[in-house]
């Protein structure tokens, strides 16, 4: 369960010395993502999706506002938040000289699992994500699909309740995307809260139970797919999106 209220974050312009030259990345971002559901954070490039996810992942501190993951505050209870959260950043890199199994095992161990538990958990994940074919190969030559699976397995290593995926289908082919959607659907069905960011309409409308549209650092509208359609009076999510961010279709 993710609950964000009025999150705001500004960054200093590169090379700027004065604070007044800050760039406002995110302002007034509020939304909720419930357990057992897939919530889509939909917005064009540069809308503030990654900044929002990074604040929720406790990687950067919000300037204003508050947010909680499964009831733990992202400002004050950083370690508890991280225990609840599996986060797969945009274009997450994996270690090319380690095998897929070693990559995942490293994260499991870092989360505090014993050697034995980690080995068991990694086996489970290899099975769950269908990674047996390349589990023991070094990841230097992996395809984008294989790399995404490793990154996802890594994010799931410590059995987090809440999962945040930043544009996970980037660079995946059709079959890769379909496979990933199934995995995400299974995770939500198992009771996990999944927050999924994307700039691709079809993907969000096909997968998400709940959608928050972000534009220019603000949440423009937040509802179910049907709710957004009826509130904007549009039949198509793309048109609804354009209307929601204040442009006429």
């Amino acid at each position, binding site marked *: 369960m993710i609950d964000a209220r009025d999150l705001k974050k500004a960054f200093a312009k590169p090379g700027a010395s004065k604070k007044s030259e800050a760039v406002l990345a995110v302002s007034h971002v509020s939304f909720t993502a419930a357990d057992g559901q897939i919530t889509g954070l939909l917005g064009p490039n540069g809308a503030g999706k990654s900044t929002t996810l990074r604040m929720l992942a406790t990687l950067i501190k919000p300037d204003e506002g508050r947010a909680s993951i499964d009831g733990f505050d992202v400002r004050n209870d950083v370690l508890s938040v991280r225990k609840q959260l599996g986060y797969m950043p945009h274009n997450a890199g*994996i270690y090319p000289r380690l095998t897929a199994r070693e990559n995942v095992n490293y994260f499991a161990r870092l989360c505090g699992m014993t050697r034995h538990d980690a080995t068991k958990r990694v086996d489970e994940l290899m099975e769950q994500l269908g990674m047996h074919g390349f589990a023991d190969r070094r990841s230097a030559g992996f395809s984008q699909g294989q790399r995404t699976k490793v990154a996802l397995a890594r994010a799931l290593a410590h059995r987090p309740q809440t999962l945040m995926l930043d544009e996970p289908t980037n660079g995946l082919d059709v079959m890769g995307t379909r496979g990933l959607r199934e995995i995400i659907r299974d995770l939500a069905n198992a009771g996990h809260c999944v927050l999924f960011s994307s700039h691709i309409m079809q993907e969000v409308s096909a997968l998400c139970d709940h959608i928050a549209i972000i534009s220019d650092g603000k949440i423009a509208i937040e509802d179910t797919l049907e709710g957004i359609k009826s509130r904007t009076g549009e039949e198509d999510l793309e048109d609804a999106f354009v209307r929601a961010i204040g442009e006429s279709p």
Partner: protein
Amino acid sequence: MRFFVVMAKEILDNLRDKQTVFYALLFGPILLPVMLGGSIIGSLKQLSVDFDEVTSLSVVNMESAPNLMEFLYSNNIDVEKAPDNPEKAVLRGDVPIVLKVMPDFDEALRAGQPAPLTVYVNEGDKDSTKQGRRVVALLQGYERTINALRLQHRGIDSDVFNSLDISREDVSLDGAGGQMIASLIPFLLIISMVMGGFYLAIDTTAGERERQSLEPLLSLPLNRFELVLGKFGATLCFVALSSILTSISIFFLFKFFPTDIIGGGLNFDGLTITKAFLVASPLIVFISAVLITVSAFTRSSKEAQTYLGILMVIPMAPFFILQFVTIRSELQSMLLPMMSQYQLLERIVLGDVTPPLYIVFSVIGTLASAALLLLVAFKLYSRDRILM
């Protein structure tokens, strides 16, 4: 204790990287000592004149100076007939030097006048210069003998002209070459430490940012201090391994150094090398901290290599400074990392006495600087900007 997990992963990861392994295990410990040590032996051999070595000397008009030829022969020089054009022969390098006895040599000698001799030397050629120095030194000895004989002939004690009796004694246990080789030990040890951890430190910090694997790592329920500590620990292991291997290779390398060149006072037995390594060992911590902190500051491997490349000058600086200036070791200067180890290691290798307080100050200064640097690295990892 999760920093052990980080450390173990970084070590495994980097042992699979050929570049890191080459610089840590081959370059510092083996290639550099052999290259530097070899060239220093070579240049020392060229500089030092060995008066006992039998060489041949080309002489023009040797018949005019039979006594001089006899004198040269008794000083380990075999005289032979010079080629027709001595100047060209020396220039071409056919013979290193040529001694020309001028036609009026014998006449001038008999008349009690200065007897003319010419030595053809090629100053651009090291071997020729060296031979020239030897022959001129011998000729000067011959001159002193003749001077004394001429004065005796006129009933004057030759000591009248020796108003000063200068004796010069080198109290150091070794020659000038020994000093140079002694300063080579800290140089080799420190460079091998830097090279040993260089690529691992870059890979684990700047490289991690570049590969975009840092963000998922930082989102784990893990204290960032443990992360920095783990990366530091891995660097430390490589730096330590590299310097231990270098100590071993120095031990074997110096077995091949001829003692007449490096001076008898220099000691390169196992005990001395072990002592030198122990005195230098706080630098393992310090250098690892420098590498981690500087590369944590940078955004990409390339940037890190640039910065660290400039920083590489710092470990070399004391080596070059101490070649030109003699800095009397003082207690305060022992607080400076690198500088203190250079001075202490030189003392150890030269067999000089080292006050224990000097070593204590050196250890404290070096470890305190390392702790400070690690704190900076931790602060760098705690900033939002580490992800930007």
